[in-house]
């Protein structure tokens, strides 16, 4: 899934070239290719970036979004059943995550926050790898170097700097890969995001800042984070930006392709604000009814990214029983596998707590490990004694 049919061809030469001489737009009106009712509308600037997307590929975007929503529901249920310690739902953000990550190439590198399970799925993380961080079995899910995806980042905004540094490394190597950093609207208040934009602009690093403005940072609304539209902010750093309808998977795909193409061709960083909405709680530990007007949720439910694509497919006569059945079967299978891989996951061994702090042994930790293992051994056989 790492490079799929939509991902391929993202840099075909027929597309317009954006370079420093031909700067991108900055902020401005919302880029949209599919209306909330599911009508495909034309856009003079961005249509060309998705003209290769076939009916079949639209169907596959629909499948990924549906599967990811199903994983989200299954994970939430597993958390309620005590099988996961926590889960950060991405309900409502499927188009932002699938549209952006399907624009990536295999050799691109991604630095996500904790909410990008959809991105992890597209990058090729195994379901057990997605589950295990949230079960508390490990602090990383997948091998970052295997799928070019960093581990979930909890410190808000931190990964924007890692992405920029990685992009500087790509520059040193003379490669044409690009880097994506995902973060939320709240993150734009953190110093690291501003510092990342300074570094990215100074060195013209091939990095795409992908901000999912889901309107809430836990209980704090986006207006508390930014007095101007988020997409206006990067311009002060000399970074062009786009404001895209984050519930429109085609528009997100197009915008991300523009930004990645620019990065690959030496045009430097781009900032994308994907305007979307978190329809669920912040995490399974959160209660949004304490801070959120239910009418707001209703308004956004009418813009549901999956319903929108579904309506488009329907209007094109593509939503036949065969497609529905395939997608349903896939979602069922993935959900079952997610559940099984979660429940069957072995617990880590106690002494694992001491492993991998350093790449070579550390005398302090070796001593503590030795003492603790002696302590654990002192219980050996005690259960049998107790049984007597």
């Amino acid at each position, binding site marked *: 899934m790492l490079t799929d049919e939509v991902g391929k061809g993202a840099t075909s030469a027929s597309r317009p070239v954006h370079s420093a001489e031909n700067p991108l737009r900055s902020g401005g009106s919302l880029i949209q290719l599919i209306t909330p009712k599911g009508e495909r509308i034309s856009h003079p600037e961005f249509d060309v970036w998705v003209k290769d997307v076939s009916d079949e590929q639209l169907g596959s975007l629909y499948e990924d979004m549906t599967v990811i929503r199903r994983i989200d529901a299954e994970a939430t249920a597993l958390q309620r059943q005590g099988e996961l310690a926590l889960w950060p739902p991405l309900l409502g953000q499927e188009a932002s995550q699938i549209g952006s990550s399907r624009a990536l190439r295999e050799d691109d590198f991604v630095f996500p926050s904790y909410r990008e399970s959809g991105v992890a799925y597209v990058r090729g993380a195994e379901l057990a790898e997605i589950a295990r961080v949230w079960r508390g079995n490990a602090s990383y899910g997948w091998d970052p170097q295997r799928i070019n995806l960093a581990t979930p980042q909890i410190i808000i905004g931190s990964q924007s*700097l890692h992405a920029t540094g990685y992009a500087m*490394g790509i520059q040193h190597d003379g490669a044409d890969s690009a880097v994506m950093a995902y973060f939320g609207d709240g993150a734009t208040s953190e110093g690291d995001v501003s510092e990342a934009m300074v570094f990215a602009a100074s060195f013209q690093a091939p990095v795409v800042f992908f901000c999912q403005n889901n309107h809430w940072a836990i209980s704090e609304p986006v207006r508390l984070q930014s007095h101007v539209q988020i997409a206006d902010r990067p311009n002060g750093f000399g970074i062009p930006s786009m404001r895209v309808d984050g519930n429109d998977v085609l528009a997100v795909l197009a915008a991300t392709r523009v930004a990645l193409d620019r990065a690959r061709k030496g045009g430097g960083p781009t900032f994308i604000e994907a305007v979307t909405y978190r329809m669920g709680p912040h995490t399974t530990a959160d209660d949004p009814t304490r801070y959120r007007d239910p009418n707001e949720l209703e308004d956004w439910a009418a813009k549901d990214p999956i319903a929108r694509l579904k309506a488009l497919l329907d209007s094109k006569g593509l939503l036949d029983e065969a497609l529905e059945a395939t997608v349903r079967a896939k979602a069922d299978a993935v959900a079952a596998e997610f559940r099984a891989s979660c429940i069957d996951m072995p617990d880590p061994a106690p002494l694992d707590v001491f492993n991998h702090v350093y790449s070579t042994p550390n005398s302090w930790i070796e001593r503590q490990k030795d003492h603790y293992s002696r302590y654990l051994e002192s219980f050996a056989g005690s259960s049998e004694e107790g049984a007597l």
Partner: protein
Amino acid sequence: MSKLTFARAINAGLRKSLESDPKVVLMGEDIGALGGVFRVTDGLQKDFGTHRVVDTPLAESGIIGTAVGLAYRGYRPVCEIQFDGFIYPAFDQIVSQVAKMHYRTQGRVKMPITIRVPFGGGIGSPEHHSESPEAYFTHTSGLRVISVSNPQDAYTMIQQAIASDDPVLFFEPKRRYHDKGEVDEAAELATALSMEKARVVNAGSDVTLVAYGPLVKTARDAALAAADEGTSIEVIDLRSLAPIDFPTVEASVRKTGRLVITHEAAQSGGLGAEIAASITERCFNYLEAAPVRITGFDVPYPYSKLEMHHLPDLDRILDGVDRALGRRNSLSGLEG
């Protein structure tokens, strides 16, 4: 052998690392054309180019955070934090990212980042230019913390730090930058004493005196002065502050039965406390007196006209030695 200042010795070590490994990149504020405010990176940008010796924007979190990304890409960044007191904006990246990435990814991602920090006082500078923040980092698992005390060690240990697959905080005693010493530039890294090991720099039998960084010289001077009066002090240069080479300190304390620790950093929660506690745990039955700490006071680093009161000097250290030996000292007669 050549006679080099401390600063030149580090410069030579950095040059060697840049030459031997194309993945080494230097980054920091003013390290290019200027050669750093202490000239430690003098001439390196000219010889290796702006892409290997990178003048960065003035953003400490940015310097360390982008180094994390470079390390992800297989680079070995060597970051300079201009002065000790300016490391705090980068604290989050150091303790939450650099230190934890290897553990977080169970070894999948290494962070071979060296963070050079000119530290400590004694140069009469204004606020935020004379701090000793080492304990914040020795308290953080995942980091190696080093402090060098002489040009030869500076030359070899900076190379060892850069070659280490673990992140290293490399504390350079800025008041010693201009001190000269013999440096064997042909010294092989493979045969050099590991940066993890402490070194006995002065053998003695009456009391063990532990120091690191800028105070190693002061401690040796104290030992020389004490020798004139018939007291034999064994001086240990810790070199590695995390992990500390306790076996070397233990062996010395088993011999002398007495322990004095000195550092410029404030006393509470400092390395002296760690060493006193650990040595007490490990060789309580060999101790003939409670360990003694001679340190900076628990105050913000004072303005320069007062720093000589704050910094442990030869006489304060000898007063501590007298305490450890049960001789008359400034605290004689004080209960507890």
